[in-house]
């Protein structure tokens, strides 16, 4: 009897110790996550039901007022539409281009290292610096783009000053900046594909395109999922270039949801309405993440 008891205590102790150990390891990250991610999310959610305090007018509970204001705010709908266009334009283009570049520089190619570096360079440059460079590409009359068009006798165009082209200009910059980054992931995945598969395919007489479509592409699906999720997040969270290039103009034609949130929060100091918009942004991103993982996960083939 006596000989068994200490053994039992020890077993419980070691189990508890493992528990405590695990939680201690999780603690630093958890504290940071709660303090800087989860708490602000909950705080923002609550703030969206209150009015913004102004001098002489303290904040008070207003229910869904901020939300009904949002539904009647034409700028909100416009930036939401812009963001949708922006995502639809940049995600397929940057991912497609990344895949193309990766396949290209994965093959035997003279000066391969140089080309790889060149493709990757836009990624390492800070967005603000890049946007300033592109500002002078786009500047009408004296910018690079118009100088080139001038050689062919084409008239100068106010690229960033025309609501029809301003958003597209931002999209081109985003694709240029992101594609190289995504290429790295594809490149790594391509090098992980066993060469035996290709040899086997050649023996079986499969064409290169057939092999790419039926073997390479499915094997790249985990990477594609990762890249698409990242591209989607980027299309909602990267707005640095707007500050430099257009400030959202003309007439909000190139404004995106996050940029509008910044304007409302720090330009107008309407923190309640900014919280409301943030809740919407979070809902969109959360919804996207769930669908992507739920839908694409089924089509992803892990090796």
């Amino acid at each position, binding site marked *: 009897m006596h000989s068994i008891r200490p053994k039992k205590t020890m077993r419980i102790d070691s189990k508890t110790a493992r528990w405590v150990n695990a939680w201690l390891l999780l603690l630093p990250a958890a504290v940071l996550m709660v303090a800087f991610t989860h708490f602000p999310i909950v705080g923002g959610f609550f703030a969206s039901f209150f009015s913004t305090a*102004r*001098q002489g*007018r303290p904040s008070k509970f207003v229910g869904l007022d901020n939300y009904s204001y949002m539904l009647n705010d034409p*700028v909100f709908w416009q930036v939401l539409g812009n963001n949708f266009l922006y995502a639809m334009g940049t995600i397929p283009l940057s991912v497609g281009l990344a895949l193309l570049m990766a396949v290209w520089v994965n093959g035997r190619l003279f000066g391969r290292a140089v080309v790889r570096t060149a493709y990757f360079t836009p990624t390492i440059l800070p967005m603000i610096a890049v946007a300033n460079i592109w*500002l*002078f590409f786009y*500047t*009408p*009359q*004296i910018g690079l783009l118009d100088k080139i068009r*001038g050689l062919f*006798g*084409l*008239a*100068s165009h*106010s690229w*960033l*000053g*025309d*609501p029809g082209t301003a958003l597209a200009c931002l999209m081109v910059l985003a694709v240029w900046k992101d594609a190289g980054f995504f290429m790295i992931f594809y490149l790594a995945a391509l090098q992980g594909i066993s060469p035996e598969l290709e040899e086997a395919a050649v023996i079986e007489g499969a064409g290169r395109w057939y092999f790419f479509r039926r073997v390479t592409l499915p094997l790249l699906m985990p990477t594609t999922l990762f890249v698409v999720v990242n591209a989607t997040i980027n299309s909602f969270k990267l707005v640095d270039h707007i500050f430099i290039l*257009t*400030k959202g*103009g*003309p*007439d*909000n*034609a190139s404004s995106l949801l996050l940029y509008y949130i910044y*304007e409302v929060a*720090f*330009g*107008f*100091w*309407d923190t309640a309405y900014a919280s409301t918009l943030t809740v919407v942004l979070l809902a969109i991103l959360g919804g996207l993440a769930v669908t992507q993982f739920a839908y694409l996960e089924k089509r992803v083939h892990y090796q």
Partner: protein
Amino acid sequence: MKQMWIRVLCGVALAVILGGTAAQAAVELNMYYPVAVGGPITKVIDDMIAEFEKANPGIKVKAVYAGNYDDTRVKALAAVKANQPVQLSVLFSIDLFELMDQDAIVPFDEVATSAEDKQWLSSFYPSLMQNSKAKGKIWGVPFQRSTIVMYYNKDAFKEAGLDPNKPPVTWQEMAEMAQKLTKKDASGNVTRWGVQIPSTGYAYWMFQALCIQNGLELMNQDGDQTYFDKPEVVEALQYWRDLAAKYKVMPEGTIDWGTLRQKFLEGATAIMWHTTGNLTAVREGAKFDFGVSMLPASKRRGSPTGGGNFYIFKNASAEERKASLKFIQFMTSPELSARWSMATGYVATSPAAYKTATLEKYVADFPAAAVARDQFQYSVAELAVHENARVKKFLDDAIQSVLTGAKSPKDALGGAQQQAERLLKPYR
């Protein structure tokens, strides 16, 4: 026992010494500073600060350059809200109501109390003080101040057969001259535009000039009422739109504020409207003969004043406020104001500054430097209302939607007025 007493005495002595040095330690001032034009602005400011610190060893000033006016306001207010030490700033003169609403600043009347201080407060040009006064108090002191002026390329005038010493004085004249100045190449593409008025960043400012010239101000003195939908205002916006749509002397779409100076310097436009704060940068960059004149008139001449004022923040201690005042008085003294004006093109803020020997000589050699000052007689306060940033955005959006051809002036301005009305009602 004896040893313990010695220890206590030593402790007391140490505390006294430390306390003494703490009292003597430098007062540290943090100042946010906006940069809205080209040229080595930060270097000029840093040099002035160094000079001040040399003359006042007890005070240290740190300037934080935080982007354009809007960016700087955002950062300064964020610092105030986070209880970061920021004792004074140069911010937009028109941010006055916004800063008051946020309860961020103190009136100068509370800090500048001696007879000398009062004298100093009344030494500035009255038209520059218009954006400083509210509720019977003075909240801002003019420093980086400007008006809009017209820069024109004299060589282009000669080429077009116009008298290079007679810039346009009316709207009609400007449109007609601009038509002559607009140059096309063989395939019919424009290589040089007649005139360009920037419409990003500070669109409302340029527009306000047009409205004043057309005989109406955009808002009332109390900053709680706007007049965006009045016929004079609609007419002014129609003229701006017509420069591109009807006269074909200005490019379609919006025109970027930041790159316009470069376009003028490269001869891509014969006339530009811009802040006088760019004068020195244009002078240094121009490879052709250029002139500067007041803006043309419709019913009258006019330009809003613009630029930045010194503000003292509420969360500065009494000692810091006094040090801030000392610094501001130094920076706005006639000599420094004159030097600042010569280095940038911004107007010197007091008549005394224009009477200093250096600036007098400079103006005699380079008469363009006095155009902005001479325009004071026609200038009015810049658009400043409660919730300024938001109201300004309504107007900016309306202007841009008209200039890009999306809306008619009447519809766009009517919408902006409606939005502004809803926002400003509670302040009346």
